[in-house]
């Protein structure tokens, strides 16, 4: 009799998804799927609204990475206006973007994944959460909260609100940086460095215990996509996209936002509201790839800030070519968080950072525009069309979780095969299957521009669809 194991919802995840694992008559895993379960329709209901409203509307796609949507949207609008934003505005937005990356990485590592890493994959699910971590290791619990607060507080200082600030607008930002705020950010840096260093030390102490997980957590060759600078260093806000193959060779370089749709396609599978993104010349699914921290560190040749550069060099020792196991997203995330803090410090020393000229203005000069950036979890693209009056007529959004969708599904299958044996599994085994998804830190609210949830039920289903047994967690 065939059976289906359903993990619903996948918890400690940004948004809602389900996993189904299909077993054959012998109790072997035949297939596994990751489902994203809701859709909201930003691509449609933005129609008819003025384009300059888009940044603050599109930010409402996601409360975890609203800044990514704000900036990608503003860039698409600036393409429509054909303006270049002032230098200071670009630097301030870059700082905002990095602050968000740090807070989002802190959330992913501490609030969502550290319960698995620090308390153990098999630890009591009733305590496997951030409060459990704070009770077992108060220093790390507070470091996580502190590192997330660092990023969120910078966003609040720059944009007045921690979530959905209205400060980023087409053409730049609404307010320059006040000297008192710059000083406040500078004063926050030492604590942020200490917190991220604590996380790196803790991660390195425990990583060795996870050899088994490393070997099956989406551990396979793939292509990788991410932004990169001309000097091949890491980039989150500007630069162009590079795609590399499993050996690290460049497949295509210099993909600008304008050319994005020439290179990147989206396929639909019936079991998910999140589309499956792929590189068009290679087709689907061969043209699938990964994005996010693991991909970015596989693509770039350098980081460019001193402390993170050292950590990067150590990280690269893991493999002579691209690093393949998605378990290492955790490590890569911490290296990036350290880079983010260093880069924020560097931006604050820009002699023009307090300049008052922070916004360019223009009307509609083109009827189409696109913007792309690196969100914390990977490449994000916004593409809009407008009429002569600047009314939106069409929008398309391609988000990180769509790019990673194929790899997440393959990763879930790989882990399910090794943790579900003869139709038998433990709670900890299923938690590991969920933990594969957590490594990618997918943003499901982004990915369908929504989400949904229900209880975890393990159902054994007979071939005629009758439920023969159910276990509820």
């Amino acid at each position, binding site marked *: 009799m065939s059976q289906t194991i359903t993990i619903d919802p996948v918890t400690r995840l940004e948004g809602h998804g389900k996993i189904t694992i299909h077993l054959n008559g012998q109790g072997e895993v035949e297939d596994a799927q990751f489902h994203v379960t809701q859709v909201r329709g930003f691509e449609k209901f933005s129609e008819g609204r003025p384009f300059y409203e888009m940044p603050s509307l599109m930010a409402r796609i996601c*409360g975890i990475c609203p800044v990514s949507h704000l900036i990608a949207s503003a860039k698409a609008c600036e393409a429509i206006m054909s303006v270049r934003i002032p230098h200071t505005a670009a630097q301030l937005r870059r700082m905002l973007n990095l602050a968000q990356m740090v807070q989002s990485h802190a959330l992913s590592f501490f*609030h969502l994944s550290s319960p698995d890493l620090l308390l153990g994959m098999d630890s009591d699910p009733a305590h496997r959460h951030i409060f459990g971590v704070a009770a077992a290791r108060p220093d790390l619990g507070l470091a996580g909260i502190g590192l997330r607060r660092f990023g969120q507080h910078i966003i609040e200082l720059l944009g007045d609100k921690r979530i959905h600030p209205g400060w980023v607008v087409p053409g730049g930002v609404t307010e320059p940086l006040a000297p008192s705020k710059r000083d406040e950010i500078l004063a926050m840096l030492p604590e942020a460095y200490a917190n991220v260093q604590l996380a790196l030390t803790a991660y390195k102490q425990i990583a060795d215990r996870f050899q088994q997980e490393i070997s099956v957590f989406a551990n396979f060759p793939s292509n990788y996509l991410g932004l990169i600078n001309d000097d091949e260093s890491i980039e989150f806000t500007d630069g162009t996209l590079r795609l590399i193959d499993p050996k690290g060779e460049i497949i295509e370089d210099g993909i600008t936002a304008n050319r994005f749709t020439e290179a990147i396609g989206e396929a639909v599978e019936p079991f998910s509201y999140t589309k499956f993104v792929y590189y068009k010349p290679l087709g689907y699914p061969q043209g699938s790839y990964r994005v996010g921290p693991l991909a970015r560190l596989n693509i770039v040749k350098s980081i460019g800030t001193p402390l993170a550069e050292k950590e990067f060099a150590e990280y690269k020792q893991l493999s002579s070519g691209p690093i393949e196991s998605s378990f290492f997203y955790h490590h890569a995330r911490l290296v990036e968080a350290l880079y983010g803090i260093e880069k924020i410090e560097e931006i604050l020393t820009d002699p023009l950072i307090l300049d008052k000229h922070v916004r360019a203005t223009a009307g509609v000069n083109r009827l189409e525009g696109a913007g792309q950036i690196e969100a914390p979890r990977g490449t994000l693209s916004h593409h809009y069309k407008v009429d002569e009056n600047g009314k939106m007529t069409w929008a398309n959004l391609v988000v990180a979780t769509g790019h990673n969708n194929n790899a997440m599904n393959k990763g879930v299958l790989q882990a399910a095969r090794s943790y579900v044996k003869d139709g038998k599994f433990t709670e900890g085994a299923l938690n590991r299957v969920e933990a594969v998804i957590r490594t990618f830190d997918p943003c499901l609210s982004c990915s369908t521009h929504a989400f949904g949830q229900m209880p975890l039920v393990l159902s054994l289903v007979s071939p005629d669809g009758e439920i023969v047994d159910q276990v509820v967690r």
Partner: protein
Amino acid sequence: MSKLKLATVWLDGCSGCHMSFLDMDERLLELAEFVDVVYSPIVDTKVFPDEVDIALVEGAVASVDDEIKIKKIRAHSKMVVAMGDCAVAGNVPSMRNPFGPEAILERAYIENATLQQQIPCVVVPKLLKVVRPIHEFVKVDVFLPGCPPSAETFHTALTALVTGGPLDISALTRFGA
């Protein structure tokens, strides 16, 4: 005094209200001395518990799953809190209402897809014709407006609910912002 049982749930929202809840930062650990977070996207419980004292609900009701969930939450919670403008009034998710679900799905999965154009239908829940705020489905005890409500609003409201003190957040609310 035994701890109160707190649940937090996401329906059709952006998770920003949950993030603002986390923005209480270190005060979260103080809160954890008075409440147990028994069900939430940040803990591993998969089934909504039988008896919850306070349920914070983010998002509007947009799919058949959401509707089942909000009724279940109401049946098992002493107090239901509509958290944020989406739960309170529909807000951004309800912007799809003038277009209807078919047009939304058509744009995303047919027009804006390159390959295998089709409307997903396996496992994923059906969308409701009209997105509505939660009070149109169940009785709501407390409304916390804002997009999202600030961490300060959460802290003030939860302190009042946990201690049984007077609840006055009128100075802290920010409708539509």
